C-alpha cells in the first residue's frame, strides 16, 4: 500500500496531526485529559457560555481550526471521517463549561448524533448543562420536507461564528442556542465533487468520480449526491448550485447574506475565486446583497477536488454577530 502522503503510521494520522497542532500553536490549543480533545488556551471569561463541536478528522481547518477567540472553546476530534467518541464529546463539554452551560454545535451524522447523545447523559449526570444545535444546511442530502435528515456541512462554520460571537457578547445558554439555531436555519449549502480522496488507513480512494463528470450534492465524506452530470463551467456550476438554494425560498430580493465558498481540499484557490465571481454575479442578478463573504479552504475533505457553496440570510442580530472580530486558525477577522 504505497501512498504519496506525508504521514508516519497511517493508523495514527490523527494523533500525529494533533501533536503538530499543539506544538505549532500553543497560543490556541491546550491539551486536556482526553487525547482527542483540545481546548482554547486563551483566556475565557468566567460565566461565558462554552461553545464546542466535534467531528471526524480530514476536514481541516474544520473542526479544530475554529477553536479560538470568540469562536470555539473546545473540540472533540474523531478518526478520519468518523465521529469522535462519546467520551471525547463529554470531555469537551466538561472543559468548556465555566458554569454557564455548554452549546454543543455539530453536524447531523449518525455517529455524531449517537455519541453526543451518550455524552450529554453523562455530562448532565456530572452537572454540566448542555444544549445542542444540529446543523443540517446541506440541501442535497434530503428534501425540504425531510429537513431533519439533512447533513451539516460548511454552514457549520457560520453557526460557530455566530454562536462564538453571541457567547462573547454575554448571551446566556438559551440565547446562544437560539442564535446558533437561527444561523443554521437561515443557511443553505450544497457541494459539488470533482474527484475522490483516500483515507490513509484505507489506502485506496473512498469512492469514484468518472473523469469528465461531477457529482452534484456530494457530501463531505463522499456521501451520495443528487446526480452525476457532465462537468460544467464555473458559470454553469454556480447556477446549478445556486438555483436549488434559491428554490428553498428563504432568500428574497433585498435579502442580505453571507456567502461562504469552500474548497474541498485539492481545488486550487484561484478556481474558488473564479467560482465566487460567478456566484456574486448571479446573486446580484437576484438582487440578493452579499454583506460578507468567505472564500477559501474552510471545510475540506482531505484531497477531494470540488467546492461547497453556503448562503446564510442575515437579520440585524446576525449582522452584528457575524461582524464581531474572531481569531482562530481557520477564520481570523478584525
Amino acid at each position, binding site marked *: 500500500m504505497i501512498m504519496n502522503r506525508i504521514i508516519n503510521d497511517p493508523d495514527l494520522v490523527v494523533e500525529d496531526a494533533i501533536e503538530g497542532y499543539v506544538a505549532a500553536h500553543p497560543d490556541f490549543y491546550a491539551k486536556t485529559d482526553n487525547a482527542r480533545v483540545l481546548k482554547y488556551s486563551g483566556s475565557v471569561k468566567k460565566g461565558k457560555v462554552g461553545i464546542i463541536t466535534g467531528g471526524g478528522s480530514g476536514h481541516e481547518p474544520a473542526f479544530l481550526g475554529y477553536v479560538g477567540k470568540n469562536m470555539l472553546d473546545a473540540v472533540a476530534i474523531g*478518526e478520519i471521517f468518523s465521529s469522535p467518541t462519546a467520551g471525547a464529546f463529554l470531555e469537551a463539554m466538561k472543559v468548556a463549561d465555566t458554569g454557564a452551560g455548554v452549546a454543543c454545535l455539530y453536524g447531523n451524522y449518525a455517529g455524531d448524533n*449517537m*455519541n453526543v447523545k451518550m455524552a450529554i447523559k453523562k455530562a448532565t449526570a456530572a452537572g454540566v448543562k448542555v444544549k445542542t444545535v444540529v446543523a443540517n444546511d446541506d440541501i442535497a442530502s434530503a428534501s425540504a420536507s425531510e429537513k431533519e435528515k439533512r447533513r451539516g456541512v460548511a454552514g457549520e462554520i457560520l453557526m460557530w461564528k455566530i454562536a462564538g460571537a453571541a457567547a462573547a457578547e454575554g448571551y446566556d445558554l438559551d440565547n446562544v442556542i437560539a442564535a446558533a439555531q437561527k444561523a443554521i436555519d437561515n443557511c443553505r449549502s450544497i457541494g459539488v465533487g470533482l474527484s475522490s480522496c483516500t483515507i490513509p488507513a*484505507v489506502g*485506496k480512494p473512498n469512492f469514484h468520480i468518472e473523469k469528465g463528470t461531477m457529482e452534484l450534492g456530494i457530501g463531505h*465524506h463522499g456521501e451520495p449526491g443528487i446526480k452525476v452530470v457532465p462537468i460544467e463551467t464555473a458559470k454553469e456550476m454556480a447556477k446549478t448550485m445556486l438555483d436549488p438554494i434559491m428554490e428553498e425560498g428563504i432568500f428574497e430580493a433585498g435579502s442580505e447574506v453571507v456567502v461562504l465558498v469552500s474548497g474541498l481540499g485539492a481545488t486550487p484557490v484561484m478556481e474558488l475565486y473564479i467560482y465566487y465571481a460567478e456566484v456574486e454575479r448571479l446573486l446580484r442578478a437576484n438582487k440578493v446583497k452579499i454583506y460578507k463573504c468567505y472564500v477559501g479552504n474552510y471545510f475540506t475533505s482531505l484531497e477531494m477536488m470540488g467546492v461547497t457553496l453556503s448562503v446564510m440570510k442575515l437579520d440585524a442580530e446576525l449582522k452584528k454577530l457575524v461582524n464581531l472580530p474572531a481569531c482562530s486558525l481557520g477564520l481570523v477577522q478584525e
Partner: protein
Amino acid sequence: MTEIAKIDNGTDIVDDLIVCIVNNRDYLSEIDGAIGDGDHGINMAKGFNICKHRIDGKNLSLAEAFETLSDSLMEGIGGSMGPLYGSIFAGWAEAVQGKKTLNSNEFKEMLLKGLSELQEISSAKQGDKCLVDTLIPAIESFKKANESGKTFHEALIIMKQAAHDGRESTRNLVAKIGRASRLGERSKGVLDAGATSCCLLLTQLIDSILKRII
C-alpha cells in the same frame, strides 16, 4: 436436566471474540471496500485490540469482560461502530451481571438486552443491509427455538445457521443506510461488512458457549 454454560472465565470468552475480529481485519475491510469505504476491519480491529490490552492477564467475569469490550469500542473508536457494537456489548454485560453460569433463558435475555440497547440509538431495520440483518434473525431464531422447547445446545446450533443466513441475505439487499447507500442499486450483489462482522462475532460466541455447556 437443563443445560447450563459455565461462563466464569469472561476474559477467555471475550479474548476469543477479539482474536476472531483481528484475524478477519483485512477480510472485513475488503468487504467494506466493495461498497463502503474499506475500513470496517480497521475500525473493528482497532477497538478490539484496545480491549485486548485492557483485559490481558486479568481474570474477569463475563460481565466485566463485555463491559470492557463495550468501553473499548465506545471510548476507543467512536464513529458508528463504537456506539452500535458498544451498546450491544453493554446490554450483554448488564444482562449477565453477577452470573457465573448461563442457561438458555438467560442467554436469550442477554441477546434481547443487547438488541434493545442497540435500538435505543439506531433505528436501522432488517432489510437496510446492515448488521441488524444478521443480529435480528439470529436472535429471533434462538428465541423461537428456546420457546418451542429446544435445548440450549440445539437452539445455539439453530441460531448459528440463522446468523449465517442473515449475513447471506444482505447479498441481495440494496443498502438503505451507511455509506453503501450512496450506490443505490449498485450496492446489490455483495455482502454487507457489518452483517459479516456480526455473523463472525455471534458464531464465535456460540462456539464459546457450546464448549462451556456442562
